[in-house]
Every structure is written in structure tokens, then in C-alpha cells.
């Protein structure tokens, strides 16, 4: 079953075309890395999947349910706000800048959405939250406020927070780009564990090592288009597109 399918997805900001006819299908259990130079539309593509950006044209299916069929920004599919929210709960999101709730402790951050949105009982939510916090290796930080954590720790809490909603799929928007180099590893480690557990993941990243090691497919985007879509061993050793070659050369050389 496909988790996500997009067909000719387009996004305009006025005259500026951010996404141009992006078509992509992601199967359950797949780990897909989106790479490309900045401004290629990787983040916008990811964000339009869970409605943080509204698409202008194109179709979007989540778990084979058509959510959007847009023509000039108008949705042809009749779907209530509530129904859309329900479906989007299947997607967990991790942001570049963590976006933890600063006024809540680590435990409260992870518990809040299950209690308020999923209407879970507080006790059950706490058990779940503690389990997830332990999973990301922060069991000694449960009662600490985010401001007292390092970037890597904050990002791990953010992952636990997203997982607490029991999503079927995780979207990572440059999860390690705001981190000091020595903190990148701990976050990637958590993501590898998730991948190994069979979580469907889309990761926008500049970590080529991670893409090589973990991804089932690597997608190269350039100027709003999906230019190449291939398994990592193929894209890194034998890229077909000229743009991909140039990009990988420059990235791998500086690494």
C-alpha cells in the first residue's frame, strides 16, 4: 500500500514557482531521503504533504485516500477540516528548529498532544511518553525544560513528541541542520533505529552518509523538480542526471 502519493504537485508563491509537477509514490516501510541544493523545494514538498503549505495544483493521496486535487489552489475534493486533521495525524513531523514547547517540560511536551488531541488518559499518556523518552535516551531529562537541553537532545525530544501520536509515517525536515556537528550523530542514531523498526520515513537532509546507509531510495530535487529517483548505491556511484552529478561532487568533496 502506498503511504503517500503525489501527482503533478505544484506550488506557487505569486509568480515564483517553488514546486513543479512533483510526482512521487512512497510505499509503506520505505525510507526516502530528499536531497538537493538549497532552494530546490525539498522542504516545501515535505511541508505540503501535511498541509503546512497549501499546494496550488496537483493531487495528493495519503494511505490511498485522495485529500487534495487542486486546480489553481481550489480543492476539487470535498473533505472536512476534521477528516483531514484525522488523516494527517498519521504523519509525524520533525522540524529543523525542533519547535519544542518551551513552557513545558520534556515529559509534558511529549504528553500534551496524546492527551489533548488523541484524548488519551493522562496516566496512559505518561506511561507512553516515558517509554518514548527512554527510547530516545533521555530518561534522565524527563522533568527538564527544553532550554536546558542541547540541540541534539531537543531534537530527540521532538522525535519522541511526534512518535507519541503513533504516526504511521515520519517526516523529517532537515533534522540535523541546526545542530553542532558533534550532536548530529545522536539524532541520526535515533532515526536509524526508527528505520530499522520499519517506520516509513521521508527525510530532507544534507547528511549524505545517512542517505547512503539508511535510505531505500534517494530523490534529488533541483529548482522545484524531482530530477532523479534511485536507490542510494546507484545515485551516489552512478548518477544519471548532470545536475545530480554536479551537486554530489560539490557536497561529497566538501564533506
Amino acid at each position, binding site marked *: 500500500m502506498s503511504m503517500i502519493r503525489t501527482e503533478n504537485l505544484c506550488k506557487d508563491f505569486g509568480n515564483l514557482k517553488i514546486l513543479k509537477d512533483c510526482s512521487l509514490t512512497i510505499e509503506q516501510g520505505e525510507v526516502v531521503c530528499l536531497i538537493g541544493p538549497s532552494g530546490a523545494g525539498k522542504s516545501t514538498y515535505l511541508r505540503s504533504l501535511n498541509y*503546512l503549505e497549501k499546494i496550488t495544483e496537483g493531487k495528493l493521496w495519503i494511505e490511498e485516500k485522495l485529500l487534495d486535487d487542486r486546480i489553481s489552489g481550489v480543492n476539487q475534493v470535498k473533505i472536512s477540516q476534521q477528516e483531514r*486533521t484525522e488523516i*494527517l495525524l498519521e504523519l509525524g513531523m520533525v522540524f529543523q528548529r525542533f519547535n519544542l*514547547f*518551551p513552557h513545558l517540560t520534556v515529559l509534558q511536551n511529549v504528553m*500534551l498532544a496524546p492527551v489533548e488531541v488523541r484524548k488519551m488518559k493522562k496516566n496512559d499518556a505518561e506511561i507512553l511518553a516515558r517509554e518514548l523518552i527512554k527510547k530516545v535516551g533521555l530518561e534522565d531529562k524527563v522533568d527538564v525544560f527544553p532550554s536546558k537541553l542541547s540541540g541534539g537532545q531537543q531534537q530527540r525530544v521532538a522525535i519522541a513528541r511526534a512518535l507519541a501520536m503513533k504516526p504511521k509515517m515520519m517526516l523529517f525536515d532537515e533534522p540535523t541542520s541546526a545542530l553542532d556537528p558533534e550532536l548530529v550523530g545522536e539524532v541520526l542514531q535515533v532515526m536509524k533505529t526508527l528505520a530499522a523498526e520499519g517506520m516509513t520515513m521521508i527525510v530532507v537532509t544534507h547528511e549524505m552518509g545517512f542517505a547512503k546507509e539508511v535510505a531505500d531510495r534517494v530523490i534529488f530535487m533541483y529548482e522545484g523538480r524531482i530530477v532523479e529517483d534511485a536507490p542510494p548505491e546507484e545515485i551516489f556511484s552512478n548518477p544519471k542526471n548532470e545536475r545530480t552529478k554536479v551537486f554530489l561532487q560539490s557536497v561529497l568533496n566538501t564533506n
Partner: protein
Amino acid sequence: MMKKLLITLGILLLLALGSIPLVMTNPTLSDYEGKVPSDFLQIEAKKEAIVYVDYKIVSCYSDTKQISSTRAQQVSYFGVAGQIIPAERGIIKFFANVLVWLPSLLEGTKITILLTVTSVLTGIFLSVFLALGKMSKFTPLRNVCSAYIFFFRGTPLLMQLYFIWFGLPALIPTLTVSSRFLAAWIAFSLNSGAYCAEIIRAAIQSIDKGQFEAAKALGFGYGKTMSKIIIPQTYRRLIPPLANEFIMVLKDAALTSIIALKDLSKVTSSIMTSTGEVSVFIISMGIYLVITAAFSKLFVALEKKFGIYE
């Protein structure tokens, strides 16, 4: 902590014990009446005001005779430890005056504080809805809230107050406000609501956009996003401008003299007109400063409390 408390209690106990002889010997009203010279008693007056204030440890007595509309004569005494001291001039007169005026000044202070606190609290309550309304995507609601804020910030508070007390009953008799305090509270709350709304709107808009996105990605609707995530983060940022608003309202409460509400300023000016003593202003300003200082302290504590996570 415990030690500090014990020391404080000890000092209080000593003071209480020490004041027992003072309380026992404190002059009574009849002691004072015996002291008033007979020539003063014989003065014919249009109006006479006798004030006796007993603070248990010290007490004070004053008798003011209004001889004509421009002339008044007064005797005042100050008593402590069985002694009655004539308070004719200088610091002792000032001190006696403070004691005589203090009860009515405190009565006015009570009204001023009550008006300020209730108005600002009601104003804050109103302003949350106004601020959210002004940021709403629903145009009619946004326009109504903007117009409200525009009106109440754009016209003088004095005139709003005047209008509610005098204007409304004349225009629409069913809208007569029954008490002066109520009228003042309505005017100040409506006005304060407009100012606080802009403070709250600014605070909400200063919250990082990523917080809204994280909330949305976790499936929070608008109401829960605001009540559980955004508004709690504004608390600490709200305190300094709200403290400012509070202090402004505290002083603006003096405007209520125009509808003859007996707030601190009104009481002060009546004392001044009836006795001709300008020193009452010094006392009054002192009281204002004490209130401001006390509330500033409270606000600093609140800011600390709400900023615990930073």
C-alpha cells in the same frame, strides 16, 4: 528560613508587649475635650468639625470651626503615653494631620485600588477576545474588534467616563448606571480592554511561527493551540506592559473625581479645600508611591514565576 521567621515573631512579640503601657495610657476623647481652651469653645461658627482618631498607641484630636466661607480656625492635639501635646506648627502638626486624615485617605485608597484591580482584570479578560478577534480570518469579527479598539483608544477616558455616568442616562434612561463606582468600573474596564488587547496581540504575534506549525503538525485545532501552547508562552512577555497599564490605570483613577467618586485623589482634594492644608498632597503622593511600589514587586515576582522555563 525558620530562624528568620522566629526572629520576626520575637520582635513582633516584644513590640506588642512594649506597647501595652502606651495603650493603657492613651488619652481618651474626654481627656482632649478638657484640653481645648475656653476662648476657642466660645467662637461662634457656621460649621464645626471635630475629629478624634484613636490608633490605640497614639491618638489625635482636632476641632475645626468654619467662621465664614474664607476663615477657619482650628485646634489640634496629639497624644501619646498619657501626654497631650498641642500640634500647632511644624513637624508635629504635620504628624497630627497625617493621623487625622489617614482614615479617610485610606478609605479613598481602598476605592482606588479596588477600581484599578477590578478594571484591569476585567480589561484583560475582554482583551483576550478582542485580540483574538482582531487577528481572526473572519472579516466582520476583525472589523468589529478593530473598531472597538480604535474607539476606546482614540477618545479620552475622561469623556468615556463622563458619557457613561451623565450621557447614557440622558440618552437612554434604561441604561442608567446605578452607582458611581459601577460607572467608573465599566468605563475603565472597557478602556483598559482596548489597551490590553493590543498588548496581548503583540505578545501572541511575537511567538515563533514554528510553535504554530508544531501544534498543527500534532493535530491541535485553533482553540487548543491558543489555550495550551501559544497563550501560556505569552504570560512572561505580557507582565511588563501589563504592569505599565496597571500603573497608568491606577493614576487615571483620579479622573473619577469628575463623577464625584471618593477615590484617593478626590478625598485628597476635599481635605485640601476644607482645611487649606497643602501638606495632604505629600501624604497622598506618598500613598500612591507605596501602592505602585508594592504592585511593581508583585509584577516582578510574577514575571519570575512565569519565566521559570527560560
